[in-house]
């Protein structure tokens, strides 16, 4: 089956220019600053990106050069990225939460020439590692606060973002055709982006994404999620991750739809309510947090409202899998009743009343959480994808939701299962390879098939992810266990934030558990247990009993062999700075096994 790509045969920067010509006055992006949403049109987007790109060239960025970007999501992020694209350079995103060492590793590995930093904090991280990074010519800073205190030896290396734009304006006067030439020479096979995987195993790897990959994945996403030019999106997840890239740049630029950047990552809740986007992407942690927030409020509220909420959830749960159009007349009536009584307010509270599609992806999620939001009337669907597949490759169709599965493959993506059940895919979206790591590329792409490393099962064309191939554990008794299934069952409890099981080569399953400080704290207050901080809460014997009960409840839903027999409560929260989780809050299993070796041995 050959797939005819419906999108114009243009690269992302060419498409941006096209949009600027076709609809110069239409709003492309809105950026919130000090409480005001400032719009920027497609023409403005294109012009500012051109000037920034030209400014970088004026600073000595070569054709095909690399530009690192370390910032939270904001207008300048995409201006930098598209600016690079327009002058034939490549953007490399770095997580703004990364510690200095990790920043240095990525910038060094990607051979970055110029790095764009958000503020003094990020600049300091780069400056701290500058002696390991001989390639870096300039550091561009978006927020000028504190810039004048830059140590004298670095002062000529640091330049402000708006100065670069001004440089670009002057440079354009001299080199009128530079952008036109670069765009004319740009081919779909050119490198568009380098996305560093978060690295839950070992060092981050740089996935090379070409313009053809982006053009290959976009139509499938657009079709599957039923997006169009009227879609609005709030961009808040890290832009150095492929998931946010596909919804902030890939799809909106091909569609001409609108993207919003909130004030900061800390104001997402308020921004969400103000924008009320028609599409929303959350990682499981976000959904779990929203779920916990609603649960807590429900505990605090009065008896009548609590009863009403429980009743509504109970009555609407049976048709949670159906989309609004598929429901019978009776079901619609029941939903309408509760919608006006309670769900409408709740949807407003979380800012998703206008959303016609809400996504969860990037990590496994408990089916109970999906069912919860679908019952409230949020059309939450689970999607699946990898950095190496340029984003989402499978997803539930809006009218074909089977909770617990990741749905069907998108258009243009072929799949097959290996004898061990590993999912392998083929299509235009399969990435070009890892940068400077041909061995890893060779094990990842074999004969054009991308090996995802995820074990799946398929029924009626719906795929269900079992676990990472390499994570599957075998106990001393020879039982195969899938850790993520056990861990997610446990994490469905509002009191358990993180659960890491230990079973490989062991007689039974044990777990390291991190309590959810907020919900357990609330519970402790309601039980009149005095505590001061995380540690004192964990050390309380009654909290241990609470978690024990939660673990037992979780165990009841699983096979005997998968039961957690013993657990240890972590006395501090896992943290990126300690190398225990990645920037996307994925647990680094091996690092945790090493750090907590003593605690683990005590469990057996």
């Amino acid at each position, binding site marked *: 089956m050959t797939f005819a790509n419906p999108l114009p045969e243009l690269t992302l920067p060419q498409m941006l220019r096209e949009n600027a010509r076709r609809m110069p006055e239409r709003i492309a992006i809105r950026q919130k600053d000090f409480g005001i949403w400032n719009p920027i049109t497609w023409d403005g987007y294109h012009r500012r990106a051109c000037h920034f790109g030209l400014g970088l060239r004026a600073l000595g960025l070569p054709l095909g050069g690399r530009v690192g970007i370390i910032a939270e999501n904001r207008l300048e992020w995409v201006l930098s990225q598209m600016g690079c694209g327009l002058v034939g350079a490549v953007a490399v995103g770095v997580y703004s939460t990364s510690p200095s060492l990790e920043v240095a590793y990525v910038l060094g590995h990607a051979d970055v020439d110029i790095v764009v930093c958000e*503020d*003094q*904090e990020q600049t*300091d991280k780069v400056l701290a590692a500058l002696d390991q990074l001989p390639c870096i010519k300039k550091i561009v800073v978006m927020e000028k*606060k*504190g810039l004048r*205190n830059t140590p004298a030896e670095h002062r000529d290396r640091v330049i402000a973002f708006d100065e670069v734009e001004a440089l670009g304006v002057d440079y354009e006067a001299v080199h009128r055709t530079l952008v036109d030439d670069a765009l004319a020479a740009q081919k779909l096979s050119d490198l568009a982006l380098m996305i560093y995987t978060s690295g839950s195993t070992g060092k981050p790897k740089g996935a090379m994404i070409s313009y053809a990959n982006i053009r290959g994945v976009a139509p499938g996403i657009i079709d599957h999620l039923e997006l169009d030019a009227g879609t609005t999106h709030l961009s808040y997840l890290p832009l150095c991750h492929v998931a946010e890239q596909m919804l902030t740049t890939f799809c909106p630029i091909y569609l001409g739809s609108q993207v919003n950047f909130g004030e900061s990552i800390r104001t997402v809740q308020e921004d969400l309510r103000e924008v009320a986007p028609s599409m929303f992407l959350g990682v499981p942690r976000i959904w779990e947090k929203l779920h916990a927030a609603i649960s807590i409020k429900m505990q605090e509220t009065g008896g009548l409202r609590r009863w009403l909420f429980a009743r509504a959830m109970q009555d609407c749960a049976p048709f949670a899998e159906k989309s609004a159009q598929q429901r019978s007349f009776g079901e619609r009536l029941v939903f309408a009743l509760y919608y006006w009584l309670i769900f409408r307010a709740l949807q407003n509270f979380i800012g998703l009343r206008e959303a016609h599609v809400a996504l969860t992806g990037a990590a496994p999620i408990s089916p109970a959480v999906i069912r919860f939001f679908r019952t409230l009337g949020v059309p939450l669907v689970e999607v699946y994808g990898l950095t190496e597949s340029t984003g989402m490759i499978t997803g539930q169709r809006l009218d074909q939701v089977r909770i617990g599965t990741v749905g069907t493959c998108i258009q243009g993506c072929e799949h097959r299962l290996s004898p061990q059940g590993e999912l392998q895919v083929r299509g235009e979206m399969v990435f070009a390879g890892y940068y400077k790591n041909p061995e890893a590329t060779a094990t990842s792409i074999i004969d054009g098939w991308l090996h995802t490393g995820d074990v799946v099962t398929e029924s009626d064309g719906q795929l269900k992810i079992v676990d990472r191939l390499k994570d599957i554990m075998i106990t001393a008794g020879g039982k195969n266990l899938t850790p993520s299934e056990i861990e997610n069952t446990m994490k469905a409890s509002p009191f358990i934030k993180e659960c890491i099981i230990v079973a490989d080569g062991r007689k039974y399953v044990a777990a390291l558990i991190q309590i959810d400080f907020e919900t357990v*704290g*609330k519970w*402790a*207050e309601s039980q*009149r*247990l*005095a*505590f*001061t*901080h*995380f*540690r*004192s809460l964990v050390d309380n014997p009654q909290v241990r009993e609470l978690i024990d009960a939660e673990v037992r409840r979780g165990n009841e839903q699983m096979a005997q062999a998968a039961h957690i027999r013993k657990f240890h409560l972590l006395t*501090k929260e896992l*943290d990126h*700075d300690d190398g225990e989780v990645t920037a996307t809050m994925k647990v680094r299993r091996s690092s945790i096994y090493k750090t907590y070796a003593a605690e683990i041995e005590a469990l057996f």
Partner: protein
Amino acid sequence: MILEINNIEVIYNNAVQVLRGLSLRVPRGQIVALLGSNGAGKSTTLKAVSGLLALEDGEMTSGSVVLDGIDTAHLKPHELVRSGLFHVMEGRRVFEDLTVEENLVAATYALTGRRATSTDFDLVYEYFPRLHERKRGLAGYLSGGEQQMLAIGRALIARPKVMLLDEPSLGLSPLLVESIFTIIARINREQGVSMLLVEQNASVALAVAHTGYIMETGKVVIDGPAEKLAGDPDVREFYLGMAGEGAARSFRDIKHYKRRKRWLS
């Protein structure tokens, strides 16, 4: 434990939640420092203990305060004072139009009508000789340090079991701060008065206190023995103004961002 605060929550104006599940303990005969930045809820905690929230339209919505084994929920502020709790308010609050001695006489109201003996006054003058020199002078004409002495002196008249001290160093010169804190430590040692000390000046507070609690946005983030807190890297950086190596930091090096606080214990 002379004073136990268990999971209290305080709401002002039925709208603003200031304390969220705050717990702390004052062991008998010890000084406990409660530190935190502006608006963390330190003064609110003291007012919740001494029952003065209602004056500011605040309300303790849950939790309990136990003074020497007795739940204080049903006690009025003046009854609390008579059962051994004295709150030295922020900003001194002396009666400015009365003399020093009259101020002290006014404090004898705390003694359930019993006439204060001259030994009570002598005790105050012994700790604060300066007040003796000025005892006929109007309190309003005292210096800030002297007013603070008077405020603490009034507390001494009541012979409290627990003294709540709200920012005794506020607006005083470093030299005066030191002498006031020396006297506070002496009162604690010699009279066995337990103290809950709220302070912005973390270094001087941790120097006299036995244990410390640090609050942020209505919650305790870290607690422990004072020496341990003074050695904690986060406390050193955010409350004691020290750089990593222990030297005081130059303002030139101050950044426009804050290192993330971790509060590991």
